[in-house]
């Protein structure tokens, strides 16, 4: 089954611009896919089909009068339910916000997408307050008995299933990259500070970033440009399509391959070979401070989150889900000096990765995104060959958190499937503000490897 909603954003945008596809037709196709997949997927918390179709009709009328707003004109999108969407409550998947009224205005990135012609189908499921990787009740389109990762789990699942062409995500410890890997789509975490986070419910102010989940790297780059409000001076898609011959890429070994499902290790190594075959110079590198970067990121994330929820955890602790409640209650007792120490260690992490890039003249480093593939919803652990297991909240963020500490841009791209048919992801990490370079590398890999052409079975079932 191939429908308009299965198109990439780039292809859909070309057709819309040439009047070969109308925004209404594309929105109807996405809504039909929602109807087909949602009984099993539960990727959305709210869908407003009437509003989406009304918006699509307006955008179609604009095209008829010669107005074309750009690549997002008429593109159906999902908005993670920690982003304010005017007229819709931001509930953050939490009983704490069960009585929240409709948002009075869009988050800045949402407003930018709306002005660029995006059609909002509704709000997608997040882990409670974006603090975790399970995103219940959303499920994985490759196997609906499994989780979609998180915290942007509903966004990742909807993009993979074709019910949105691209969706909003936020990434504080891996919440864009993890669901991208677990659902077999692309996730682009920009450089810290590159996208305005106003109107997005915070998790950890000094780590929060906003970015897209999409089907292809080119799609994600175009959406990021809109989220960030970049113009001619900065373009994440500027290098898309350029050769990667001669670029130097480090394959991060220690820490990133220490505890990993073997099929993920093999997939990332195969991806490194593909990059070599495309002319890049791929070398094994070690970043000994990765462990420090992860620890610093973890502490800062946990302690800042306690302050975000300081009032509610004291007044109505019973309204939080058990996992987040326990996290807030325990981490509120962590000493302030430990938090400052983590901030100092963050500086060391940043310096050390900068030194690695400079000394080895690297354009990017690559690493696995997640230590495990999609876990069953009734067994939230990742199993390793030595018989040990690790809770998903650690296994899914252990390899992503270091780059929240350093603030670097990262694009997570599919790099294969395990023997159960579950997606595997790879991170391509760049220098600060070098989104265009990592998108060039990830795009070249993606086109050569072709994993993005696979569609999850939920579409056919």
């Amino acid at each position, binding site marked *: 089954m191939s429908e308009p909603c299965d198109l990439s954003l780039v292809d859909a945008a070309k057709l819309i611009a040439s009047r070969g596809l109308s925004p209404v037709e594309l929105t109807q196709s996405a809504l039909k896919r929602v109807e087909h997949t949602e009984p099993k997927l539960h990727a959305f918390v709210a869908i407003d089909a009437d509003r989406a179709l009304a918006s699509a009709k307006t955008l179609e009328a604009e095209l008829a009068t010669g107005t074309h707003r750009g690549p997002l004109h008429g593109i159906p999108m999902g908005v993670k339910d920690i982003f304010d969407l005017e007229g819709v409550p931001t509930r953050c998947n939490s009983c704490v916000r069960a009585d929240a009224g409709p948002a009075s205005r869009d988050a800045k990135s949402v407003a930018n997408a709306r002005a660029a012609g995006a059609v909002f189908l509704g709000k997608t499921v997040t882990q409670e307050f974006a603090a975790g990787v399970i995103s219940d009740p959303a499920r994985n389109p490759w196997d609906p008995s499994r989780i979609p990762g998180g915290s942007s789990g509903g966004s990742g699942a909807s993009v993979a299933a074709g019910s949105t062409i691209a969706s909003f995500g936020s990434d504080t410890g891996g919440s864009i990259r993890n669901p991208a890997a677990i659902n077999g789509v692309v996730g682009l975490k920009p450089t810290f500070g590159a996208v305005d986070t106003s109107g997005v419910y915070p998790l950890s102010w000094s780590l929060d970033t906003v970015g897209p989940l999409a089907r292809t790297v080119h799609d994600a780059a175009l959406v990021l440009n809109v989220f960030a409000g970049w113009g001619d001076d900065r373009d994440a898609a500027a290098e898309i399509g350029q050769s990667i011959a001669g670029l130097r890429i480090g394959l991060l070994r220690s820490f990133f391959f220490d505890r990993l499902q073997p099929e993920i290790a093999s997939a990332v190594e195969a991806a490194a070979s593909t990059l070599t075959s495309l002319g890049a110079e791929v070398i094994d590198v070690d970043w000994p401070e990765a462990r420090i970067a992860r620890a610093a990121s973890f502490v800062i994330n946990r302690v800042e989150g306690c302050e975000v929820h300081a009032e509610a955890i*004291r007044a109505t602790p019973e309204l939080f889900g058990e996992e987040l409640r326990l996290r807030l*209650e*325990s*981490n509120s*007792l*962590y000493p302030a000096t430990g938090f400052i*120490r983590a*901030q*100092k*260690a963050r500086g060391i992490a940043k310096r050390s990765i900068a030194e690695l890039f400079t000394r080895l003249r690297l354009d990017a480093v690559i690493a696995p995104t997640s230590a495990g593939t999609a876990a069953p919803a009734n067994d939230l652990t990742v199993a390793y060959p030595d018989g040990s297991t690790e809770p998903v909240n650690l296994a899914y963020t252990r390899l992503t958190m270091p780059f929240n500490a350093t603030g670097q841009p990262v694009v997570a791209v599919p790099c294969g499937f395990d023997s159960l048919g579950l997606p595997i992801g790879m991170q391509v990490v760049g220098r600060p503000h070098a989104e265009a370079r990592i998108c060039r590398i990830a795009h070249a890999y993606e086109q050569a490897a072709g994993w993005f052409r696979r569609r999850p079975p939920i579409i056919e079932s």
Partner: protein
Amino acid sequence: VGRTIDIARTVGAIDESLVEKLGIIQGLNFPAERLPAITQRLRDLHALAADLDELDLDEVAPASTFDPSWDEDARA
């Protein structure tokens, strides 16, 4: 180099009684039945943060920023 903290001793010192008292100081009154789980989580965080204790951070500034400039409204 670094602080000489015995993490096993640190984590071992975190018991339910301490957690209950720290909770009171923080305005968090934990029901007795929640104390074991909260205590274990706090131990876990300290254990994970032990990687930071090995570092010599005397010459390192915290990665926090403060901009002392005033916005336009306040300046007027």
